[in-house]
């Protein structure tokens, strides 16, 4: 039994935590909330440390550290509320290119992504409701794509879009920001620290990612991203719990710390429980991701569901624990609340994942399949 990260990754985590606490505290997220654009210098620093390309192969400028490195870094990026395109450019688009891109596409884009020179993002959602790789809106013909995608993460800072759309040979299309027919407009999201945008494509030139030929491939990409997102969610939830706990210890009312009242204590105990369940399930996801196990879809679903739950209760009750201060703009509580809710939507809500989990478990239990 070795259900833990190797020591070198624990060191990486500690290193990332120190660096981010120093260079990217919640004040950085607050600047982004108030409208500051992406801090490209900071992103380059992360790239220079090898984190942006952590899981990419060395021949493409990556560090070749593997998926577990992405897990521990995701947790720390989530903890620090980093206003950076980590999820979109590293965990989603970067992984998609590495998995599905042609050698030429990889050779062109991966070194730029790994170096932090270019930012890429995945554009999936065409409208409200559950995302289904088998039923994508929009279309591609003769190398030109016409589609609208909503709530595209980091859309305004992206240089490259990977757009999910049905077309000849692929369900995922590479569209450069500066290509003709590409319009990006800002959209109001819950979490402006990682601003979303709308992508309108009108006959824009698009290249297929040859490996993303069927819904299963796309689904697997999302499953993999969901495990990494679960670590981000875990980090955010832990940070919110720590903030609430610190406040409850130091804030006095009625002549005693509010953390000595059971109403607060038991609330935070419940948050702790949700965080621990999320951690354990995320670790399972990490194992499935690293082992490229057949269990990955199930592991991704439970990691996602537990991550959404932990993020919601931890950030919501952090506000509540802070009382009146909790709902002011000046306190950081809402930064966590916004981030956790945005994380819980970005790859489809927990509701969708629950649905998918039971599909998977029901398929396992079908009598016509071997045990």
């Amino acid at each position: 039994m070795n259900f833990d990260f190797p020591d070198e990754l624990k060191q990486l985590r500690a290193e990332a935590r120190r660096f981010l606490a120093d260079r990217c505290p919640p004040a950085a997220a607050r600047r982004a909330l108030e409208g500051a654009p992406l801090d490209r210098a900071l992103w380059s620093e992360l790239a220079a440390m090898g984190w942006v390309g952590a899981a990419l192969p060395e021949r493409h400028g990556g560090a070749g550290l593997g998926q577990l490195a992405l897990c521990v870094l995701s947790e720390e990026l989530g903890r620090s509320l980093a206003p950076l395109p980590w999820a979109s450019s590293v965990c989603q688009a970067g992984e998609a290119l590495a998995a599905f891109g042609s050698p030429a596409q990889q050779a062109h884009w991966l070194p730029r992504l790994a170096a932090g020179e270019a930012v890429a993002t995945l554009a999936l959602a065409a409208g409200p409701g559950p995302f289904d790789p088998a039923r994508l809106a929009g279309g591609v013909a003769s190398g030109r794509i016409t589609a609208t995608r909503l709530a595209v993460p980091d859309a305004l800072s992206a240089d490259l879009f990977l757009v999910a759309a049905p077309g000849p040979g692929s369900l995922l299309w590479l569209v450069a920001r500066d290509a003709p027919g590409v319009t990006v407009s800002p959209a109001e999201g819950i979490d402006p620290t990682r601003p979303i945008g709308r992508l309108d494509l009108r006959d824009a030139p698009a290249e297929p990612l040859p490996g993303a030929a069927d819904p299963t491939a796309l689904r697997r990409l999302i499953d993999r991203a969901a495990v990494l997102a679960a670590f981000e969610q875990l980090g955010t939830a832990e940070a919110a719990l720590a903030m609430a706990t610190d406040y409850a210890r130091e804030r006095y009312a009625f002549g005693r710390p509010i953390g000595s009242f059971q109403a607060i204590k038991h609330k935070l105990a419940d948050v702790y429980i949700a965080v621990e369940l999320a951690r354990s399930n995320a670790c399972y996801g990490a194992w499935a991701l690293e082992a490229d196990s057949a269990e990955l879809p199930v592991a991704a679903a439970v990691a996602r569901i537990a991550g959404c739950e932990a993020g919601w209760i931890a950030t919501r009750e952090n506000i509540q624990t802070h009382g009146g201060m909790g709902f002011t703009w000046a306190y950081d509580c809402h930064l966590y609340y916004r981030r956790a809710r945005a994380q819980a939507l970005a790859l489809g809500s927990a509701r969708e994942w629950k649905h998918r989990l039971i599909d998977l478990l029901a398929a396992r239990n079908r009598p016509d399949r071997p045990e």
Partner: protein
Amino acid sequence: MDFDDTPEEAEFRAAARAFLDANAIRRAPGAVEGYRRGQDKPGALEAAKDFQRRKAEAGFAGINWPVEWGGRGGTQIQQIIYDQEEARYDVLTGIFGIGVNLALPTICTWGTDAHRARFAGPCLRGEEVWCQLFSEPAGGSDLAALRTRAVRDGDGWVVNGQKIWTSGAHYCDFGILVARTDPDRPKHEGLSYFILDMKSPGVEIRPIRQISGSAHFNEVFFTDVRIADDRRVGPVGAGWKVALTTLMRERYGMRAAPGPDFEEAFALAQALTLEDGPALANAAVREKLAEWYTRTQGLRFTRFRTMTALSRGQTPGPESSIIKLVAGNKLQEIAAWGLDLMGMAGSESGEALPLGGLFEEALLYAPALRIAGGTDEIMRNIIAERVLGLPPDIRADKGMAFRDVPTGPR
């Protein structure tokens, strides 16, 4: 058992409606009452004052005030009937609520004839707007732990300190202020209650921005602010007792939460398609909707029970104490659920739907509704102690001089 007005109530309701039809615009059916929307519009304050003046002239301001204060001397149920009707119109009378419902009833009860003569009329006619200066940053839920000091100086008092959560401080004329006049007495015993002219030198107002981005509350700072002793309400040291008159009325006035409720959740479900077909056919969606409908109806009929008691001239039971707690939590649930249902496209997809933005907005102001006017935790304490008669928590500061009460590292 019926839901009908008595003949007298029906007559009064008709009169109220006639006044409102003549003086205000009825809201379109189905329009959702937003969260203090409209209050920020230019000219809103002037329009509100103008309406309040006409309302007072027509005898609908201070319906339940005694005649000797300048009110109508009507019944509580008449007040509720008028409020029910007024809620259907686009009028901003909320800004007068603190004056008409909290400040003047307290001042008229505890104050002097001179206080009544000077303040009641202008308040009722909307000429002077009032705010409440009770809460402080260091106090939080421990309202009586306030630190703003009022020190006797000749024929008046000098006030230093800070208040918080003051609605509308920037447009208000007067405030009801509780300050500590003797820190050597236990917490509740060294307080006094004052009328503060908000235009006094030394009063500084800073808006507090909330999560939702709006700023309906303020911090108010006092630096050597002078208040004449004849602006004191009730005896020196009796401030907490006087404040309780205000607070009891505040708790009583708790209303349900604005924003998306069952109807909007239902409309969202009607508009969306999920994995297995229309969202309204999805059993998980259906169960949630049914639970919210049941809770919403439960609150509605709870208000009916209160109104029945009032209609009979009886004192209502404690049932209305549950309304704020249930409504605030339900709102936060509904907001999060609405976003989850819209899914990956998240907040942006709201635009594509008839209810665009409503759930996102609610998600950001719902936390305030679980805190302002008494946190969930304080509301549960109140229910447990005052309704169920459970014993109070152990008081760490009991009997202690206020200056000796532990305040922690912050």
